[in-house]
C-alpha cells in the first residue's frame, strides 16, 4: 500500500534546517541520521584503470587503502560518525560477485574501526541502474535487472546499512530533451514514465531491504537534473531550464518515498530539499566540498538543510597532503564540525540563512533551493496525487518563482536567460492536463525506437 503525502511535514520554515528532520533514521549501530547532528558522507572511486576480473585484486587493494585512509582520518579528527557510500562502477554491478567482494572489504573494515576505536560508521550501498544498458531499456526483467537484485540482496545480507540507487527510468528519452531544452518531453519522461518505474523499482528495493534488515534509502535524478546543471554550467543550455528541471524531478522522486523509501536521500539529489519538506525524511547533499567531482552554483545553499554532507565522489590520486579521499574526508569533517558547533550554540537557523543567502540570488538553480521557495513548490506538489499533474504544476510554479525573482530584481539572470522563462512557460502551457491525452500525444511525438512504453506498464 503506497503512502500518500497531502501536506508538508513542517508547519514553519524556521524548523527546516540542517542536521535535523521530522523523521530521523536510527541505523543498526545506533547512529541517528537527522536527529540533530550532521555527519559527513564520503564516497571514493578507483583511479583511471580497467575494471576487469584481471584487475580485481588491485581494485580490492585500492578500496581497502581508501577506506582505511578515510576511517583513520575520521577517527583522528574526532568525527561523531561517518557514512561511507559504495557506489559501484558499472562493471561491479554487471559482475555482482566483484561488487559483493569489495563491499565486504569496506564493511569489515568499518566494523573493525567501530570495534577498535568506537568510530560509528554506516555504509550506503549504491549499485548502478544497469537497465539502460539495453537499448531501448528493459526495465523489469533480464540479466541486468537480475544482476542488480543479486548485488542488492547479498550486500544487504552482508551488512549494508542503506540501499540506494540513481535510477534511470525515462532517461532514455530525457537526454535529448535536455539538449533541446524541451520541457514537454521531460514532463513525459519524468511524470509519466519515470514515476511508474519508481513505483515498481522502490517496491522491489524496499522488499529486499526489509528482508535483510537494511534501510530502504533513496534515489537521485542525477541523470536528469544534474546533467542539466552540468550542461548549464558549460553554457550549453539555459540555467533557467536547469533550475526548472531541478524542481520538476521531485514528483518522480517522491514516488520512492510513497513506496517504501525512508531516506536518507542520496547526496547528488538536490531535489531532496523538496522531499524533506514534504516527507520529513533525512537527506544527504553535496556542494562546495564536492567540487572534486563537479562544479556547481549551489556550493553553500546545498548544505542549508542537509542531514548528511557529501563529497559526491573522488578518485584515489595522490595530492600534496595525501590521498584525495582522505583530503575530502577532512574537508567534510570540518564543514560538519562548524555546522554542529553552530547548532550546539543555538545558531542553526542563522547559519542556515547565511548558507542560503550567500548563494541564492546569484543563480536560478540556487534561488529555487531557498527554503521559502522550497516550501512554495512543495505545497504545489502535494495539491495533487498524480505524478504527471505534479510534474507539470511543479514546472509552472518554478517558473513563476523565477519570474518573481527577476521582477523583484533580487535574482541575477544573464540577459540571454531572461526570455527563456517565457519560452519554457509556453511549452508547459501547451501540455493538456489530461494524462491519458498527453500520453497519446507523446506516443506519436517521441521516437519509439528509444523506449518501450510497455516496460513502464503502459500500452
Amino acid at each position, binding site marked *: 500500500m503506497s503512502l500518500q503525502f497531502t501536506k508538508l511535514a513542517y508547519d514553519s520554515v524556521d524548523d527546516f534546517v540542517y542536521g535535523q528532520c521530522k523523521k530521523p533514521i536510527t541505523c543498526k549501530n545506533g547512529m541517528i541520521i537527522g536527529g540533530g547532528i550532521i555527519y559527513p558522507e564520503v564516497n571514493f572511486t*578507483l583511479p*583511471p584503470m580497467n*575494471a576487469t576480473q584481471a584487475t580485481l585484486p588491485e581494485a580490492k587493494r585500492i578500496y581497502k587503502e581508501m577506506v582505511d585512509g578515510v576511517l583513520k582520518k575520521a577517527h583522528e579528527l574526532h568525527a561523531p560518525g561517518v557514512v561511507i557510500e559504495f557506489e559501484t562502477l*558499472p562493471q561491479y554491478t554487471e559482475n555482482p560477485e566483484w561488487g559483493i567482494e569489495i563491499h565486504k572489504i569496506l564493511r569489515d573494515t568499518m566494523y573493525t574501526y567501530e570495534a577498535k576505536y568506537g568510530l560509528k560508521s554506516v555504509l550506503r550501498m549504491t549499485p548502478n541502474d544497469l537497465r*539502460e*544498458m539495453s*537499448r531501448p531499456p528493459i526495465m523489469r526483467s533480464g540479466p541486468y535487472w537480475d544482476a542488480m537484485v543479486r548485488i542488492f540482496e547479498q550486500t544487504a545480507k552482508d551488512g549494508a546499512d542503506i540501499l540506494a540507487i540513481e535510477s534511470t527510468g525515462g532517461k532514455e528519452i530525457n537526454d535529448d530533451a535536455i*539538449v533541446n531544452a524541451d520541457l514537454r518531453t521531460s514532463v513525459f519522461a519524468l511524470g509519466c514514465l519515470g514515476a511508474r518505474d519508481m513505483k515498481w523499482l522502490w517496491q522491489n528495493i524496499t522488499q529486499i531491504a526489509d528482508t535483510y534488515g537494511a534501510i530502504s534509502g533513496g534515489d537521485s535524478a542525477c541523470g536528469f537534473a544534474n546533467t542539466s546543471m552540468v*550542461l548549464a554550467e558549460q553554457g550549453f*543550455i539555459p540555467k533557467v531550464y536547469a533550475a526548472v528541471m531541478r524542481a520538476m524531478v521531485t514528483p518522480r522522486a517522491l514516488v520512492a518515498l510513497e513506496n517504501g523509501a525512508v531516506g536518507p536521500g542520496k547526496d547528488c539529489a538536490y531535489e531532496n530539499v523538496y522531499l524533506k519538506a514534504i516527507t520529513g525524511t533525512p537527506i544527504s547533499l553535496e556542494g562546495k566540498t564536492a567540487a572534486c567531482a563537479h562544479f556547481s552554483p549551489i556550493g553553500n545553499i546545498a548544505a542549508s538543510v542537509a542531514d548528511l554532507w557529501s563529497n559526491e565522489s573522488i578518485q584515489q590520486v595522490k595530492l600534496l597532503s595525501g590521498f584525495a579521499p582522505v583530503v575530502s574526508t577532512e574537508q567534510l569533517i570540518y564543514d560538519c564540525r562548524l555546522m554542529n558547533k553552530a547548532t550546539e550554540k543555538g545558531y542553526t537557523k542563522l547559519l542556515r540563512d547565511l548558507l542560503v543567502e550567500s548563494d541564492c540570488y546569484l543563480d536560478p538553480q540556487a534561488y529555487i533551493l531557498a527554503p521559502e521557495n522550497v516550501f512554495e513548490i512543495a505545497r504545489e506538489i502535494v495539491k495533487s496525487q498524480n505524478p504527471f499533474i505534479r510534474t507539470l504544476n511543479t514546472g509552472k510554479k518554478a517558473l513563476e518563482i523565477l519570474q518573481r525573482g527577476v521582477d523583484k530584481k533580487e535574482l541575477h539572470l544573464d540577459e540571454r536567460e531572461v526570455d527563456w522563462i517565457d519560452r519554457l512557460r509556453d511549452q508547459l502551457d501547451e501540455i493538456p492536463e489530461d494524462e491519458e491525452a498527453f500520453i497519446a500525444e507523446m506516443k506519436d511525438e517521441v521516437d519509439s525506437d528509444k523506449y518501450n512504453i510497455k516496460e513502464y506498464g503502459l500500452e
Partner: protein
Amino acid sequence: MDMQELSLAVQKGKLKVVKELVNQALEEGISVQEILDTGLISAMGIVGEKFKNNEIFVPEMLVAARAMSAGIKILEPLMSDSGVKPIGKVVIGTVKGDLHDIGKNLVAMMMRGMGATVYDLGIDVPDKNFVEKAEEIGADIVCISALLTTTMPAIDDVIQEFENAGVRDKYYIMIGGAPVSQNYADKVGADAYTSNAGEAADVAKAYLISDCKKGVTA
C-alpha cells in the same frame, strides 16, 4: 534569390522556410555548391560563432542544425552529379562499457554543422566497430568519447585496434570526455584532445582544410 535570406532562415531554425528557399534557389539555377556553401554551411558557421560568444545556447543551435539538414537533404541527390563532396567524413562513438552520449552527440552536431558527414556509432561501441566503420566509409577523422575513469582506458584499446589492423596512420583520431586530458591523449597516441564540442569542430575543420583532400571549403 538572395542567399542571405536562406542563411537567415537557417540561423533562426525556420525549417519549412529553408526547404522552400532551397527549392526556389534550385529552380532559379543557383548551383548546389553555392546553395550549400553560402546558404547553409556558412549559416551554421555564424550560429557556431554566436554560441562560442555566449549569445545563444545549444537548443537554438540544434534548431538551426535541423533546418540546415532539411536543406541538405534536398540537395543530397544532386550532389554527386554536381561534383560536390562533404568537407570530410567523421566516425564517432562512445567506447565499450560507457553509455554516456550527450557530449558525443553535441560533437556530432557541431561537426555536421561545419559540413562534415558524420557516422555516429552510438554508445557502448566495441573497439573493432570503430575500425570497421572507418574503413568501410573511408573516414578522415575518428572521434572517441569516454566519460568514466574506468572506461577511459578503452580509448587506448580502440587506438590499438587501429594499430593492429595496420590502418592507424590513415585516420586523424580525436578523443574527449570528462576524465580525458591532453596528457592522456599524448600517452595513447591520439592526434588531438579537445575539451568541448565547439573546440572539437574547430580542430576537425582545421585538420580537414589543411588536409586539402576535399572539394568543399567551409
